[in-house]
């Protein structure tokens, strides 16, 4: 990639008209991403956004990079093949709570386990937007929707708990409306080697409006949010007995995922920021190293030799 690229947010806007509902949280995320990408110093042509299906998955159309709007739930699998063969690219996955956690759950947990070099942005609006408002795997229990007139029965996933349980090396959470925080989290995700999962609380003002108001309302957010920063102290919530919760210095790099897991369970307050960020072998990197190693040890494969093999005879 060219040594010196100076791009602006405008350079990352595609010519396609954005088709989300007016007021949708996706607009804010799009703006933040377009504002952040120039920072990467990566040429547009070396960035690829792969998405599944859902309102959120329309995202790639609006970015002037390479992109694929694939099928429902399969983006992590598709991106894995791309990243494994093209380590020179910066590959991003855009997905929704249904796309990633319902139909796509298996691909997500396997991508995390393998630690493929992907940045996965999960737009969690706790609803199926594109299909007009059925409950999703992150909707609260008892949710009344078109498909659950008497209330949903399933206990929702904690996406970050699931990710940590699936060996994730990087998990973070942020909010559509907090551009500064969102950008900072994207920055750290981009720097991470391996799979980075970023859960973005996103407001669907049509089918699940206000789901995150408590975390956004200036009146409540300071108590409702727990802002995590590596190396900075945070205080656990009060004990039921009223005693103050203990103060802990946040160590995102702790090899033991237990604390990060505990944080992923918390809801009052709700932790945002990078819960976990640890180094471990990266799948696609290793795959290419094996190829290199094979070439080094056995030499570039020769087709003649392969086809001939060891056991041949001549007919004259």
């Amino acid at each position: 990639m060219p040594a010196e690229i100076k791009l602006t947010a405008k350079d990352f806007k595609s010519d396609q008209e954005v088709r989300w509902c007016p007021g949708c949280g996706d607009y804010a995320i799009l703006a933040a991403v377009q504002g952040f990408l120039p920072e990467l110093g990566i040429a547009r042509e070396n960035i690829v956004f792969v998405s599944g299906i859902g309102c959120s998955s329309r995202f790639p159309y609006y970015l002037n990079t390479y992109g694929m709007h694939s099928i429902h739930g399969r983006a992590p699998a598709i991106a894995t093949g791309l990243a494994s063969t093209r380590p020179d690219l910066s590959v991003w996955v855009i997905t929704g709570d249904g796309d990633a956690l319902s139909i796509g759950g298996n691909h997500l947990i396997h991508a995390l386990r393998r630690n493929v070099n992907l940045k996965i942005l999960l737009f969690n609006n706790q609803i199926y937007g594109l299909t007009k408002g059925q409950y999703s795997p992150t909707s609260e229990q008892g949710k009344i929707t078109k498909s659950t007139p008497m209330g949903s029965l399933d206990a929702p996933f904690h996406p970050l708990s699931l990710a940590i349980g699936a060996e994730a090396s990087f998990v973070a959470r942020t909010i559509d409306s907090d551009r500064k925080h969102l950008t900072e989290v994207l920055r750290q995700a981009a720097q991470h080697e391996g799979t980075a999962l970023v859960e973005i609380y996103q407001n669907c003002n049509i089918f699940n409006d206000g789901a995150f108001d408590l975390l956004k309302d200036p009146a409540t957010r300071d108590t409702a949010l727990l802002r995590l920063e590596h190396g900075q102290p945070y205080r656990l919530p009060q004990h039921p007995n009223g005693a103050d919760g203990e103060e802990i210095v946040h160590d995102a790099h702790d090899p033991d995922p237990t604390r990060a897991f505990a944080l992923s369970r918390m809801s009052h307050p709700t932790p945002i920021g990078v819960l976990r960020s640890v180094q471990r072998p990266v799948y696609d990197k290793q795959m290419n190293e094996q190829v290199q190693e094979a070439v080094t040890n056995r030499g570039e494969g020769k087709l003649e030799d392969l086809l001939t093999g060891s056991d041949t005879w001549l007919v004259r």
Partner: protein
Amino acid sequence: MTSRVEETGSTFEEPPTGGPHTGGKGVRRLDRVVIRFAGDSGDGMQLTGDRFTSETAGFGNDLSTLPNFPAEIRAPAGTLPGVSSFQLHFADHDILTPGDAPDVLVAMNPAALKANLGDLPRGAEIIVNTDEFTKRALAKVGWAADPLDDGTLSAYAVHPVALTTLTVEALKDSGLARKDAERAKNMFALGLLSWMYHRPTEGTERFLRSKFAKKPEIAEANVTAFRAGWNFGETTESFAVSYEVAPAAKAFTPGRYRNISGNLALAYGLIAASKQSGLPLFLGSYPITPASDILHELSKHKNFGVRTFQAEDEIAGIGAALGAAFGGALGVTTTSGPGVALKSETIGLAVSLELPLLVVDIQRGGPSTGLPTKTEQADLLQAMFGRNGEAPVPIVAPASPGECFTAALEAARIALTYRTPVFLLSDGYLANGSEPWRVPEVAELPDLRVEFATEVNAPDGSGEFWPYLRDPETLARPWAVPGTPGLEHRIGGIEKQDGTGNISYDPANHDHMVRTRQAKIDGIEVPALEVDDPSPAFGRGGPTADAKLLVLGWGSTFGPIAAGVRRFRAGGGKVAQAHLRHLNPFPANLGEVLARYERVLVPEMNLGQLALLLRAKYLVDARSFTQVSGMPFKAAQLAEVIKENADAC
């Protein structure tokens, strides 16, 4: 399975003549032999068969093999479901099938004998391991009396041999525990058969030493058992004669040959396609019988730049391959029928994205889990139609194990030229069966180089890149891979405007795109169908052939059909034969070929899937002859059917 020499099915003999390697024992010359090794899943019959095969191939016979084993890894010892067998047909002339019935059966235990007895013609030779014929073992397969001495086998030439005892005896100094020593009894049997049929032995000894390199004592034990078997034949009285089957010199066009199975040839074909196209090979696959061996083979060749990805499931396997294709790799996914079903949705996406992708289906018995280790051709219509919407996909199908190599190259040619997913339909019989294969010169291989798009192309001079601006010839769209400056673009599975590729719900555009995708596939150039018709008039611009019956097949039925045709012709019958390697689109001359004959017979290992396509497209009253038993057709059976149909003309 190379040229077109007669195959009569008869086995002529000559007066015994002393052969060099025998201590004055009789030697007979045969033109062909069918041997079947049968034993427990744990007895190593597949290995034994493989070894005999390589020696036979190296010796220069033409050959064809048919492995046959249960889905269980090791069904319980001594039971009928646990029997595993390997049939080998070899000859001094070219042959087409693994043989209808064994001339010789090697039965390692009662179950093996019982399970295979039904297939033996009277007079066949049977070599039995008497050590295993215990009361318990006999009871296990429901034999009250011992068939070795109750007359059950009176119709056959039986050689009772205490294989186990003899093997253990031979290894008494090896220091191996009896249990381990017994394990080598398959090598004893192999040695014995190698003596009987004058097979070379060095190869096997070399093989054993390298296979067990880490356990030299095991290697030695196997070599010892192997030699002991040979010497047993040479020295004891039990075997009066041995047999020679001369090399099949005239069966082979000159060149370097090796023995090859369909799955191996297919893996090599994929690597060759990668080399010839200059694109890195990426395989996204989930293990499934009988396709797994392609994954295994390709994963050995990373020094060819091959990347193999064992995915979490079939959907991820093809998804990753499609992602790799988007990035400019030769994307491949390998599976069997149930896996194809799971990949359907993603194949539809590939059709919509118009990216090159190879979908390899090693067909097995269905529906559902079906018969995982048996063969079938019942995925043709799934390959044609198994997706939502109008989503045409080209289909190629090899006709023999060796052809799996060329089929892979041909599938790649179509995928890369037309930017489309392509189906390659092989099956369990081709996958595991093997035949001598002339090693091609790399120079003979097709040039598959592709040009990625590097320039903007908008006809309106807007300086934009239009990902769906088509080549007027092929209707293929440009392939612009990430990393190419200025060609940034987005593609997806929603309907898009032809040219720009922008999302479009416009009714007229959708109709246009549906027809354009179809026209692209219909317009694929495929070689004309060759017809084997000995009619004098035929081909020389004369009137239509005087054969009135055409036998038309596809895929692995080629061997049995051609063998059946030979037999019928040997009896003076007139019949034409043609075999389709392209199922979608059909060769341009197919309609005209069909019109030439009064009757068209289509033998298939399904309920008539090709016949359905022929009838629909050409309104020809194609007649199906079907068998869906998990086993290949037999030459005799087809000769019969051909005769009936020819007589009815």
